[in-house]
């Protein structure tokens, strides 16, 4: 909501409806012989949407975020955020953004409340408003009980939440989340995801970098895939998913001997778009590539109808490796997450 009005009012604004506009961005480290962290990147983030920037370590994701938050100056190209140029209008730009990095950017020696109060004061809130806003956000991010403890005593997830809260104090219209869940356990990761979804529901524009396909799927409307400083694919999440093959459904029947019969049933019935169901008798499991929720429902429904007793089902997304394989035909160079899905034959 904030983003919309600001951009409309802005005289030098971006193209209508585009909150972040990046053109031909280049950043080189270590002189002319150094590495190109960004090598001519173009991207747009539409207002009120989440753009996921997916890529392995060293792909240039963090460099992009640091340029867009005025921490780094690009060597070439242009970038505008909420209508403000990163090079020419950094001060105005800083009023519209919030940044939550891989490393919690809060003061560890200060309590959660003091951290938020300080940020509020730095954003020119009067003392009483800064105090109120701090308490409000502590409550919203379930940190009220720990409000008086120094941040160094917080768990990883609490720190990340405090960091998010700190980014929210000024009600930024554009929020950068640089690998917001890297290093978090699944439960904490879900908490962070919930918060991000809530923020988006309130109209924030988000640029999210991640190494996890699953995270991109959960949060992003559109995806841009980075590799070695270049954009190698971009589009809506479902478009890219179709390209890389969507999810894989794994079904474990109560009686392991029935997996082959299940695969045969699916093949014979010929559900719309469902093909390639594979039985793995050794494991007593059936693998089915799935492109939509409807297909998932149809497959489970059919198996139920035909009297198969199912002990366990699960789906998983392709790993970053598999995404890269599908897009470029080569494996990623960096280390990737989502390793748990490797080796699954679909």
């Amino acid at each position, binding site marked *: 909501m904030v983003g919309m009005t600001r951009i409309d009012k802005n005289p030098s604004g971006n193209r209508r409806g585009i909150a972040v506009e990046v053109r031909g961005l280049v950043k080189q480290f270590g002189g002319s012989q150094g590495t190109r962290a960004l090598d001519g990147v173009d991207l747009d983030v539409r207002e009120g949407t989440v753009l996921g920037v997916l890529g392995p370590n060293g792909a240039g994701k963090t460099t992009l975020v640091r340029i867009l938050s005025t921490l780094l100056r690009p060597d070439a190209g242009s970038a505008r955020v909420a209508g403000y140029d990163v090079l020419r*209008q950094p001060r105005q730009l*800083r009023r519209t*953004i919030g940044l939550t990095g891989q490393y919690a950017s809060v*003061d560890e020696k200060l309590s959660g409340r003091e951290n938020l109060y300080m940020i509020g004061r730095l*954003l020119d809130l009067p003392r009483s408003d800064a105090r109120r806003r701090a308490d409000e956000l502590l409550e919203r991010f379930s940190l009220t009980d720990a409000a008086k403890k120094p941040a160094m005593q917080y768990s990883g997830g609490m720190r990340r939440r405090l960091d998010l809260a700190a980014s929210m104090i000024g009600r930024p219209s554009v929020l950068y989340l640089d690998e917001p869940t890297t290093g978090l356990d699944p439960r904490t990761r*879900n908490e962070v995801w919930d918060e991000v979804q809530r923020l988006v529901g309130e109209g924030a524009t988000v640029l999210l970098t991640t190494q996890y396909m699953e995270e991109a799927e959960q949060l992003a409307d559109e995806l841009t895939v980075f590799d070695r400083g270049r954009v190698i694919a971009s589009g809506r999440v479902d478009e890219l998913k179709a390209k890389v093959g969507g999810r894989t459904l794994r079904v474990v029947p109560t009686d392991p001997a029935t997996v082959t019969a299940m695969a045969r049933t699916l093949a014979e019935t010929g559900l719309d778009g469902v093909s390639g169901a594979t039985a793995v008798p050794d494991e007593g499991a059936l693998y089915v590539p799935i492109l939509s929720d409807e297909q998932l429902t149809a497959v489970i429904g059919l198996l139920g109808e035909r009297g198969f007793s199912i002990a366990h089902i699960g789906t*998983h997304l392709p790993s970053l490796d598999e995404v890269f394989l599908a897009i470029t035909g080569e494996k990623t160079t960096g280390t990737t997450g989502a390793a748990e899905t490797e*080796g699954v034959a679909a």
Partner: protein
Amino acid sequence: MTATSTNGTGATAGAATDVTTGAAHAAGAEGGTAVDRGVPPQGSAPPGGPGARAGAEGRIGLRAHLRHIGALARRNALQIKQDPESMFDVLLMPIVFTVLFVYVFGGSVGASLGGDRHDYLNYVVPGLMAMMGMNIAMAVGTGMNDDFRKGVMDRFRTMPIARSSVLIAKIVVEVGRMIVATAILLGMGFALGMTVQTSVFGLLAAVGLSLLFGAALMWIFILLGLTMKTAQAVQGVAMIVLMPLQFGSSIFAPTKTMPGWLQAFTDYNPLSNLADAARGLVNGGPVAHSAWMTLAWAAGITLVMAPLAVRKFRDKT
């Protein structure tokens, strides 16, 4: 076509995750808006508050600047509260130095001054004020280097505040620490029998001059702290600079017995000027030349180093 049991577990966890987030998301979407609607819109967030006007031209006014410095100085002060051990240097340094210098050198240097240990006390304590400023300034360098490694600096640098406010706030708090150290030093001096031969104003002027010069020195060490890679390196370089400046001065002993080349150095050493000025202000005697020299040094150092330090802070990656 192999799928190990680990893979199976992974997939299971993934599915469970899907379900929970889905549900939580649905709940969160509703709850979220409800909560935020409860927020009064006049909460002076940048879009509507005074910040919006500043945002239009992007400049930061003086009052806002002072407010930012205040908020950041509060941060530095709270850090001290959280970590009281960081005050040990300020609390103990004046006591240890006074006792050491007065009882080790007091007798012999005092005699050469034409008096005794008591005369040396009045000689060395004003000089120690100068030394204290330098030692605390050095700690600023290592502290800055440490601080910069933390993520919170990135946050400050992405906020609509003047970059200098982070540095100035640090100096404000460090000057506060210097005041504490000077108070303890003077308390120690008086306890051992130091006397003020001019007036309390002379004493205050001496303290003020020391603080001013100490604050100027901090810019050098901030720049050093931002330039060097590690805090240890900062400390190493600072020590090498510090020792000749402190001992090659009139802080601890009169310079008249020193060889000519060293006297030439001490004459231009700003710490000598400061020590002489402070001594003159406390004990009486000529002040003008050394005081002006000290002020000129302080102004010169600040004018050159402060912009360099701010620039380094802005561009550091």
